[in-house]
């Protein structure tokens, strides 16, 4: 540890007030062996060029703000070590498929607007008063949905998804995974309520199962899996409603 190494960072720059096209700026730095990409960016910001703009906060992989393209792959920069790249030059760009506000800062309004449409909150059968205590849920029942509840909204999956890149009306991996997170929760009865958005044209059926969202997800959420599970469960719901039109699941 502590060994320094000459690294060249090629960083995407865009300032709308002065530019119409992005440029790449090259910074040569002495990077430490234990540095993540974010450390290098912070070093540049503090020592070389304070105008470089990017988002970050927790620097421990949990707040979800530091996603960028590193050598063409979407990464959380606070978890991505420079030493893992054997190229001399590391190229840093804003996440793909999002409008760029400035430098490495993307606009994620689209996701923030989509999120509420999948009703990502618990919809119980009926409201239970607090003095009746907690809903019982075994560790096994927690395990059923736990994985899909680990999403940090980092947007890496959206920038890996060509379907979203081609058509941004697609609800997308993280939002759909959250829908399945609540659908699978034994306390929740909102599956029907979520059907409208989830099974709409822009919802699960737009997914052609490229599977890259799951590959790039830094928190092992498996959004691709969640979407396939949604397809199956809503297809079964539909089949049941055709066979037994009266009963329909609640």
């Amino acid at each position, binding site marked *: 540890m502590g060994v320094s190494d000459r690294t060249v960072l090629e960083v995407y720059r865009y300032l709308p007030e002065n530019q119409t096209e992005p440029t790449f700026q090259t910074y040569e730095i002495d990077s430490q062996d234990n540095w993540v990409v974010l450390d290098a960016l912070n070093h540049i*910001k503090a020592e070389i060029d304070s105008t470089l*703009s990017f988002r970050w906060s*927790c620097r*421990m992989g949990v707040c979800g703000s530091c996603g960028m393209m590193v050598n063409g792959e979407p990464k959380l920069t606070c978890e991505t070590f420079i030493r893992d790249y054997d190229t001399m030059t590391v190229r840093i760009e804003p996440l793909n498929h999002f409008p760029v506000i400035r430098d490495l800062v993307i606009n994620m309004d689209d996701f923030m607007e989509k999120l509420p449409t999948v009703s990502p909150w618990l919809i119980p059968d009926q409201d239970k008063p607090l003095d009746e205590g907690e809903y019982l849920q075994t560790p096994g029942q927690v395990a059923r949905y736990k994985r899909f509840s680990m999403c940090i909204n980092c947007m890496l999956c959206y920038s890996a998804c060509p379907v979203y890149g081609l058509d941004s009306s697609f609800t997308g991996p993280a939002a759909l995974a959250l829908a399945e997170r609540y659908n699978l929760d034994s306390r929740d009865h909102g599956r029907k309520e979520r059907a409208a958005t989830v099974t709409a044209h822009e919802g699960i059926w737009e997914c052609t199962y490229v599977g890259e969202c799951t590959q790039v997800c830094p928190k092992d959420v498996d959004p691709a899996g969640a979407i396939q599970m949604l397809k199956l469960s809503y297809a079964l719901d539909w089949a049941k409603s055709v066979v037994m039109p009266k009963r329909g699941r609640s």
Partner: protein
Amino acid sequence: MVEKMDSLQHDVLIVGAGGAGLRAAIAVARDHPGTSVGLISKVYPMRSHTVSAEGGAAAVISASDSLDDHAYDTIAGSDWLADQDAVEVLVENAPDEMLQLEHWGCPWSRDADGHVSVRPFGGMKLERTWYAADKTGFHLLHTLFQTALKFDAIIRYDEWFVTSLIVADGRCQGVVAIDIRTGEMLSIGAKSVVLCTGGGGRVYPFTTNGNIKTGDGMALAYRAGVPLKDMEFVQYHPTGLPGTGILITEAARGEGGVLLNNEGRRYLQDYGLGQPLDLKDPDHPRKQTMELGPRDRLSQAFIKEREAGRTFEGADGDYVELDIRHLGEREIDRKIPMVRELAVRYVGIDPVHDPIPVRTVVHYMMGGIDTDIQGATSLPGLFAAGECACVSVNGANRLGSNSLTEILVFGARAAVAAADHARRVSPPSNQLLENSAGSEQSRLETTLLRKDATYETTFGIRSDLQDALEEGAGIFRDKTTLERACSKITSLKERYENLVLTDTSRTFNTELVTALELGAMLDIGEAIAHSALARTESRGSHQRTDHPDRDDPGFLKHSLAYRSEGNPTIDYKNVTITRWPPGERVYGGE
């Protein structure tokens, strides 16, 4: 997203969308229909630092536990500086807040029978810490955020940075904020403002706190004439990873992890924290002893060990070892998976096979904006809750897992008080709002954004401030170190006047945000150093080597730092004692 209007107005405006702010917003939206709520945050809500909390949140749930025990542990942990009426409010409301989160979908870890699990935590007599593996804060924050999406009454201003409070006619009537994306400066009017802006650990160089924890809200209140209370009490956590300062949660010790010095000895036994039990003993880890002692005592023990040469030397500073190997891979992966994830990633050590290097690290501010038990400050219309506030339930040392509870209980409580206040007053005039934004805009243009040669850099001043506090107001301090810190901060404030930014663009100007944050950090740094200098006793996390004893006749009091020309004025007010007269803090089972 916000529609731009000529004037933005709300009944209740909440600054900060971490655990406290979101809980407050939901409280108003759900329980006071018809009240309009604004929720401003300098980052998207789910980026707030509550997200990083790992270990859990305390609330009495088991039949063998009692509210009085939780209260007593908190008060003893605080070295009797907590206000006991506030502590009673905390412990009484804690179980309902935890249940409420459960009803909103929080994935609490469960026992086999389906009930919520609780784990032991430092300084707590019984298992009463609710947890969601070791990502409790993450789940808590996302549950609150997602639940808040349900309420149309909550209007969010994401990535807006509040630069000042609007005070007129003796009351707070809103805030001025920059929309970071466009650089536009706007007033947002409100009948009540609730500050939920979190802590300020970033004033120190080595901290578990994220980049956004710069004490902005404390500084906003301080500049508006509201005192900052008990700022000298800064919590160092005993187990941070060297280099990054990333936290290894106390839950690692709650589940049985032990601390070892370079002789392989469980050194805490030498610091009045009881005798170690064998790791195989069914009673290990024994509550309130050894590794489950309070944080102030554990961090102080680390420094003493270092002085005695019994710590390891590493490239990123001295460290001791946290050993959890005896838990085994399965338990580690079930109960504290993130500990493993973080250790493997950031120090290249798999705790299943090797002990984790750890050292003390700045973690939490016990002090903050002085509020009463309803969350009201001395400025009418201004409320505060969460880590930025000081009610005070944490006194001179916070017990782990009380903070997540505090942000929920007092977040909701301050919101209710703010909504009540909003019903009694009239909204601010458009004229006032227009003028406030205008004058704040020109203040920035004549200072940070003036087109001038750069004399000083934000980053230079910031690291000098951090070093001044670490050297002068660290775990152990004395008159000389504190006086040095005070005078350094004075000169840093002068240097700040000469600060000119390189980046003068409007779009997403992060240098401007950092510079504004630095302004806040200087203010709270000043309050910390001066309050610490004035308190000539040792209590909890405030250890004066020149005044090593607790002095109840002189200092069973909260300090209040008021901003004034030059140095802050330090005043005091009494601690509220209800049922637990000051006593000795006993850890170690005697």
